[in-house]
């Protein structure tokens, strides 16, 4: 089990970092079956604070706890393993260098980290020409099996709130916004998908952003 192989690392934490002994012991004492990825936001905040001080084991642990999430986010947008790996590399180097900038009062650790990764992925995808993106095969068939994983995924109050606001948009625009966010689609791609001129997409996007802004009270 993944968990077992990480335990020595957590134990090392306990012996090396007296100041953080309580947290570290807590980590080490996690019951069998709880994976490293199950770190709570508070534990991630602590890890990022340690990373800001140049703590390499903390960085490794942070990476282990968050890599799959961030990779999922960027792979969805870039659709290519090699590009996604490059973006992940740049993202974590950036996190290593700017962990001190993280403000837990403003966002959860994973939201902050995923935003950095996604932003970088968008940079990459926008700089590539549309043609080179379109070349990639998109075997987008969905496979079955897993019993409703989404039901168990965390859904924070902030997410519910944003979804409520997106849900107030017309159905087409909901789709527009979410396709743009999740798949990193350009206006041109969205225009093709919705069979409408790019300028119309531009107007819809702008209107949708303003509606969401008003709804969120930003």
């Amino acid at each position, binding site marked *: 089990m*993944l968990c077992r*192989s990480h335990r*020595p690392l957590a134990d090392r934490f306990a012996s090396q970092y007296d100041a953080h002994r309580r947290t570290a012991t807590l980590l080490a004492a996690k019951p069998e*079956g*709880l*994976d490293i*990825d*199950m770190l709570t936001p508070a534990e991630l905040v602590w890890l990022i604070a340690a990373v800001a001080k140049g703590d*390499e084991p903390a960085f*490794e642990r942070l*990476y*282990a706890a968050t*890599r*799959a*999430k961030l*990779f*999922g*986010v960027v792979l*969805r*947008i870039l659709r290519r393993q*090699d590009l996604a790996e490059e973006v992940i*590399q740049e993202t974590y180097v950036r996190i*290593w260098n700017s962990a001190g900038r993280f403000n837990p009062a403003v966002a*959860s650790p*994973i*939201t902050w980290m995923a*935003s950095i990764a996604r932003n970088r992925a968008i940079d990459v995808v926008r700089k590539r020409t549309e043609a080179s993106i379109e070349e990639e*095969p*998109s075997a*987008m068939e*969905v*496979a*079955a*099996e*897993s*019993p*409703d*994983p*989404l*039901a*168990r995924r*965390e859904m924070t109050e902030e*997410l519910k709130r*944003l*979804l*409520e*606001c997106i*849900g*107030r948009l017309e*159905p087409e625009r909901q789709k527009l916004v979410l*396709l*743009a966010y*999740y798949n990193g*689609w*350009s*206006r041109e791609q969205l225009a093709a998908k919705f069979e409408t001129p790019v300028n119309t997409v531009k107007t819809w996007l*702008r209107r949708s952003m*303003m509606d969401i802004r008003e709804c*969120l009270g*930003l």
Partner: protein
Amino acid sequence: MVTDEDQLALAAEYALGTLDADERAQADAMIAADKEFAALVEAWGLKFGVLNQMVGSVEPRPEVWDRIREAAGLSGAQLPLLLPETPQPVVEPPPAEITPVADRGNIVAFPREGRRWRTIAAATSAIAAALIALVVTQVVRPDLLPEGLRPAPRTQVVQVPAAPAPAPAQYVALLQKDGGGPAFILTVDGASRNFTVRKVGDAAPEPGKSFELWVISDRLGPPRSLGVIGNGDFTSRPTLAAYDPNIVKNATYAVTLEPQGGSLNGKPSGEPVFAGKLIEAVPAEKR
């Protein structure tokens, strides 16, 4: 504070990712030069960032960590490289708390008398304007990547328990009262059409009563019961599997208060207490 609508829209679209490369470069210059604008962009980025909670995890290859360490200039001396060297493609079994409730999975065949409920369905779709639902298609899977780009099979898909398996289309509806927060989150697996109702509010049926879930669609006539919602945090059932996917996607889902154990005659005995619709947000993409 930035009040100019063009700038506000620019910041939002930057965060959404829909600016083209030139506009993005311009916005980057503004971010570097204008602290307020930079803060606005970051705020939008974090607002949208919560959407990533819905994205499934995919394990990167172990060598990515080596490259990060090198690029970040880590000493690495004291680390035996535990993580990268011991990839364990383990699929965590689903957490035990998600036990399908073992009472009757009652799909009741209704006589044709759906008129009243059709009205209610119409009324709830009006309510549904304020309700939100979301579809996330978990399409990003290493096994969908082009042949040559796949990682070695041994490390191909490492499932990470917190965000269990990359999944097929996932439909989500927040079931709520008009203007109130959601009481239940309904999730429907696009492939199996199994659904799970997750209790999120503090709504509880009066003593001696039960909450019952119904699917309402013009195409079905009267509402059909999907069963009683159990007392636990999660209630999972396969009872939607019998329905046409298009009905499942477009129906209204409503919760009514019923006698304990569910409606006695297979019909809802009152108006919906909570309701919501599934909205297609990220469809399985076919470009």
